[in-house]
């Protein structure tokens, strides 16, 4: 079940207040913005640094920050709002709809209709945890085809296994190791993963690298 604190969360220009690691600021009762260091992000861009003209797929939806950062590195950005497309296709009330094969196919056509090996990297962020097993399997299968061999995925997973609702963020890149997280509400994760289940989840990929964080968030770099 999705709960949105305000219908106009993303309306109007967001004001990003630089705050300390894991501190929280509420702005105009609409958008909660935090900033945090991300070793996973740093590592992801360390892999693609020094190269230009790469194709990066960003699941966070279009934001000025991500566009500036990625295109300034000389890469081409593909922008998709994964969660919005998820709700468009399956609705935002009943995650059990995610088992409908027809809707799964429609979602993949709408969301991941790309050529084989098209991307050098995908910024997956935290969206995979909102997918039920059939949709997650199909999405990862598709991701494994559109990312070229030796390409990378950056994914985040909430680590609190008892959490019923987790913050749902829009991820904006401030610099190579700093993220600004604009909270868009809370969502119920469809699955909670630990390190072992994440290894199993990405078993078709070449390697999985975990980064420890002080928050309840697992950062994972996956190499195809």
């Amino acid at each position, binding site marked *: 079940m999705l709960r949105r604190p305000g219908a106009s969360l993303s309306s109007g220009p967001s004001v990003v207040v630089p705050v300390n690691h894991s501190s929280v600021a509420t702005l105009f009762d609409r958008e909660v913005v935090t900033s945090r260091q991300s070793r996973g992000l740093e590592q992801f861009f360390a892999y693609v640094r020094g190269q230009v003209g790469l194709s990066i797929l960003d699941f966070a939806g279009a934001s000025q920050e991500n566009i500036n950062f990625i295109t300034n590195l000389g890469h081409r950005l593909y*922008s998709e709002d994964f969660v919005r497309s998820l709700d468009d296709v399956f609705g935002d009330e009943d995650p059990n709809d995610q088992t409908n094969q027809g809707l799964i196919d429609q979602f993949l056509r709408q969301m991941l209709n790309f050529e084989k090996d098209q991307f050098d990297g995908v910024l997956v962020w935290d969206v995979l945890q909102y997918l039920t097993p059939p949709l997650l399997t199909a999405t990862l299968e598709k991701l494994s085809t559109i990312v070229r061999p030796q390409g990378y995925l950056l994914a985040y997973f909430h680590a609190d296994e008892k959490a019923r609702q987790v913050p749902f963020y829009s991820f904006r890149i401030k610099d190579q190791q700093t993220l600004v997280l604009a909270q868009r509400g809370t969502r119920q994760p469809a699955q909670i993963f630990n390190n072992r289940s994440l290894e199993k989840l990405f078993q078709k990929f070449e390697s999985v690298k975990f980064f420890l964080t002080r928050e309840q968030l697992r950062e994972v770099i996956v190499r195809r």
Partner: protein
Amino acid sequence: MSIFNKRQEEVPPAPRPAATPPSNPIEVKKEATPLSSTPFKTPEPPDSTRGQASIGKAVKINGQIYSKEDLYVDGDVEGTIELQDHRLTIGPNGKVHSSVKAREVVVLGNIQGNVDASDKLEIRKDARLVGDIKTARIIIEDGAYFKGSIDIVKPEPARSSPSAPPRPQSAPAPAANAQGVAVAAEVKR
């Protein structure tokens, strides 16, 4: 009694006196409210004084649009829009299903198609753009929806010398024939 009869009963205006130059200049006062009070609110209304063409929100066009002046589209367009070195604005009611090419593109409405903006692209709040973008600069506001790829193409730096370096004689520059088509001349010794 119908409204039409009512109008006929209205008292005709008194005959105007012959125009005579006023002895003292009279200050002309404008009406407090203009005669046309139709509400018309768009963020960037077309301004004819700036040489901007306009397609209103009740207009639907199928086909190609080629313009040599700025264009404001608030209606429906299916086809292609090309503006050489000019600015294209898609108004909040605008729905464009076509590829778009202009120096500068501002989107407040809806575009489904590829956008080539040689200088700048602005996607405003509540705008929606689905397609691939090729531009030198992009500005996207929070609340805008975009799905597609972004290719930043930096403009070529201006050449310091207007004259091109001389070409070697063995490789002459292509000459243009009468139809303006460039043809390469082959030199045989």
